């Protein structure tokens, strides 16, 4: 918690140009750190935690590989580029999606499709990084993932779990805390439905506490021999980790307590369990959850493969939106479905589609977004954005608007460079109208 709070404070102080972290540490006596008497920090943090932001959260459904817009939410039946994929009607008159998303079609009135996403990055790692951070990778600055920004900007003092959880194996680098520090890294868990790695205590709690007590006493001896600052940080981290694994909030990770009807609605699949867990985590107070789904890189056999991928996604995605709505959480929870780019309009000789950043689609729901609308348009062939282009930074600005995060806030990179949360771009205001 303290590591987390310290960044909160640093950032605001940096912006006023008063303090850097180091000065800050120098400015308070080592003794007060060791003694743990830093309650004034908590006061500052509580003031920083704007009450209206308290319930805000986001769930990113990250479709790694670049899902084809033709076979998801921008079908082009009747055009050669559209291939065999048919369009179906949705709960909103006049809006059609691909036949691969029948369940999503039923909740279309809660969601908005952006059909005019456009970018220049056609390589997986660079585009993935760009979509996660709003910046291209550089050697000099490690940009934070947007989820890390959310964890930093929407602090939850009462939360005993990590503030940014990433579910699923991400073979690509979706970026982490970057310059914000590893305390804002996503807490990664390969799959939902069981406790995260290393959270099962090595012993029973009585012995665990006894061990922690012994550790504290032995550490105190080192603190007295030149290591007070290191010991203070270490002890706080251990307290936080111990608080987490002993917390009743750990039950959030277990899905057994959910009624059968709810579990059935999400479906008995990896992605279904991940979506259900995401809802539970947000309910517990976690401001950002990312779910990673691999397999959208359909250079060959595009049509059956996207159908199969969509088959995994469709029902849980729709169930998540409906469940959040039913619980009154949808207004404050932004749900985003996106990949790093789209796919070529022309179908290649292997019945596949290749990388295509120039036009792709993203779905957003909740978090103040008015459902039942489509933003932008591609041309008849699906290759050119014809109306209302939305860049990656526009999209990130939109997330900030939904989450009430000031995108102009600057974090300071280790080389002293100020880095805006989002540099450039405009939110898609129509989404909120």
């Amino acid at each position, binding site marked *: 918690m303290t590591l987390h709070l310290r960044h909160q404070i640093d950032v605001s102080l940096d912006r006023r140009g008063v303090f850097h972290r180091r000065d800050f540490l120098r400015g308070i006596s080592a003794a007060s750190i060791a003694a743990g008497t830093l309650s004034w920090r908590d006061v500052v943090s509580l003031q920083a935690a704007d009450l209206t932001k308290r319930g805000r959260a986001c769930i990113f459904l990250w479709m790694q590989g670049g899902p084809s817009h033709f076979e998801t939410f921008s079908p082009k039946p009747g055009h050669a580029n559209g291939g065999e994929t048919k369009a179906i009607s949705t709960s909103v008159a006049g809006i059609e999606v691909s036949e691969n998303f029948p369940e999503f079609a039923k909740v279309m009135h809660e969601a908005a499709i952006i059909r005019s996403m456009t970018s220049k990055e056609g390589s997986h790692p660079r585009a993935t990084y760009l979509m996660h951070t709003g910046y291209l990778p550089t*050697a000099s600055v490690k940009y934070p993932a947007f989820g890390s920004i959310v964890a930093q900007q929407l602090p939850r003092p009462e939360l005993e779990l*990590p503030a940014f959880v990433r579910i699923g194996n991400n073979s690509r680098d979706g970026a982490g805390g970057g310059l914000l520090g590893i305390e804002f890294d996503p807490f990664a868990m390969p799959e939902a439905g069981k406790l995260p790695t290393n959270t099962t*205590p090595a012993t029973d709690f009585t012995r665990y506490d006894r*061990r922690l007590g012994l550790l504290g006493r032995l550490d105190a*001896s080192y603190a007295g021999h030149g290591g007070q600052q290191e010991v203070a940080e*270490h002890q706080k981290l251990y307290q936080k980790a111990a608080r987490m694994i002993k917390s009743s909030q750990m039950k959030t990770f277990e899905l057994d307590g959910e009624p059968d009807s709810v579990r059935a609605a999400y479906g008995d699949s990896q992605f279904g369990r991940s979506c259900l867990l995401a809802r539970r985590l947000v309910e517990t107070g976690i401001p950002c959850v990312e779910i990673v789904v691999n397999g959208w890189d359909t250079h060959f056999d595009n049509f059956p493969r996207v159908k199969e991928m969509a088959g995994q996604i469709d029902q849980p995605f729709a169930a998540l939106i409906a469940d959040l709505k039913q619980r009154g959480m949808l207004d404050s929870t932004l749900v985003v479905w996106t990949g790093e780019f789209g796919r070529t309009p022309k179908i290649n000789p292997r019945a596949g589609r290749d990388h295509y950043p120039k036009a792709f689609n993203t779905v957003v729901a909740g978090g103040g977004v008015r459902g039942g609308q489509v933003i932008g348009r591609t041309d008849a062939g699906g290759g050119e954005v014809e109306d209302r282009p939305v860049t990656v930074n526009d999209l990130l600005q939109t997330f900030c608007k939904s989450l009430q995060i000031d995108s102009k806030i600057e974090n300071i990179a280790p080389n002293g460079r100020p880095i805006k949360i989002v540099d450039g771009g405009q939110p898609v205001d129509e989404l909120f109208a």
Partner: protein
Amino acid sequence: MRCNSMIRTTTALMLLSAVGAALVGRSASAAGLDPLSAARQVDELLAKEGFGAGQDANETPAAKADDQTFLRRVALDLIGHPPTPEDITAYSLDTSETKRLSAVERLLAKREFGENWARYWRDVIMYRRSEERALLVGPTVVSFLSDEFNGEAHWDKIARKFITATGDIREEGATAIIMAQNGVAEDTTAEISRIFLGIQIQCAQCHNHPTDRWKREQFHELAAFFPRIAVRAVKKDGDRRSFEIVSVDKERKKKEKDKPGRGNTEHYMPDLQKPEEEGKLMRPVFFVTGQKLESGEKDQDRRAQVAQWITSRKDRWFARAYVNRMWAELVGRGFYEPVDDIGPDRSCSAPHTLDYLADHFAGSQYDVKWLFRVITATDAYQRESRSRYEEGKAPFTANCPQRLRGDQLYNSLIAVLGIEDASPKERAKEADNYRAAMASPRGRVNVAFGYDPSAPRDEVAGSIPQALFLMNGAELNRGLNGRQPNTALGKLLGEIDKNDALVEELYLRCLAREPNPAEMETCLEYAKSVGNRSEAFEDILWSLVNSTEFLNRK
């Protein structure tokens, strides 16, 4: 001490005298200034620059660290492994006045010395990679640098190999910096300047540098040494894929539409107002000295030339950048911080000391081991540690605790658990597959605990997954089990009957020192209160492995 330690001690002492003799021989023929005299000079200069005795009360230098603290520090620093209990015993029994020097010599001669610093530089390079596929070169650069550091170890030669590298990245480790930046001229330029000169000239890539004197043109003139590098996929039988760094001296037919100027054999500085245009043709000029080449030179000639200019002894940047970084690693604070930002408009805390070291390092022909000998012999290095930012304390009046890098921590864990490092066969397999390397026990510890060595150390914080790994990790906790006769603790519980001797042994294994009386009392009382001896010592060992001191070198 137990008798088997004593036997090993005798052998160690015999070895020790052999090393001592070798030391004398070596000093006589060394190219650089005598390391010990250089170290004395450094301490005097530091004192003159305000970091010595007799200033005001706040700046009283810390006392000289005791032998055990010194030995763990220097072993972790030089070879990345903690000393074994036998090393410690041998060292404690050595009464010679030059025992710290001989310990350093012994460590410099170990295979692990090269490996440790190879891994360090791998991290320096790879933490700034622009794409994940660059991880393929990780094992190759470690083996390349291990050989270099264990061989002649001249930093200028190593730098020239990095700057001029070509070939398959799985065979040529020197391709690492270029591969990590995907061969892109601007990014490669930025890294070469940062790593070898300590100058962050890439800030001038898009605008004139706000706080340094370099202009946008100068960055792009430096980039003009590197426009002819390309990264190509190497297709090999089966699934073995690699990449190679090649020179492209012929004009490429296909230009990248979205990146005007890319794919050319010359470098163009983009026009910020008209990014769609090719930009301005830049001639290769080395910004530090103004030395220049004509356009049209071949890739290898350009790179060889700029490598000569960068490593030239006529100019101090190259030597200063390396000395500053190594000093910061060893003494805990850099003359400049961050360590890779030492540009002409940055302030240096002790410029005369740095220049003295840099000049003599250059004079030793950039002998890496010479610099290690000098720094580890200074009082500045050998003092007790104080927390990094203790109020009112000047730098260099004490050493600073350093958080162990992933590899150092892994080496410490296997020493405690009494398990072997990966076998040469396993290593070869890992070298062939970076995913396997990352999934290995060492790889996982590196992923969880590693950090960018160039990052300011006060920015390097612990994380929840790290704590959880050490607290609850199943493999680790199986290794800490005392009721299994085949674990290290199980064996010790069987061999050592007396609790105080066992506490002492665990302290030596984990922290490379004996417990102080208060710690001994805490542990003995703890054992008494728990009753069950195995259980009590499992808890003690667990606490030591989870302690702050274990994670740091002080």
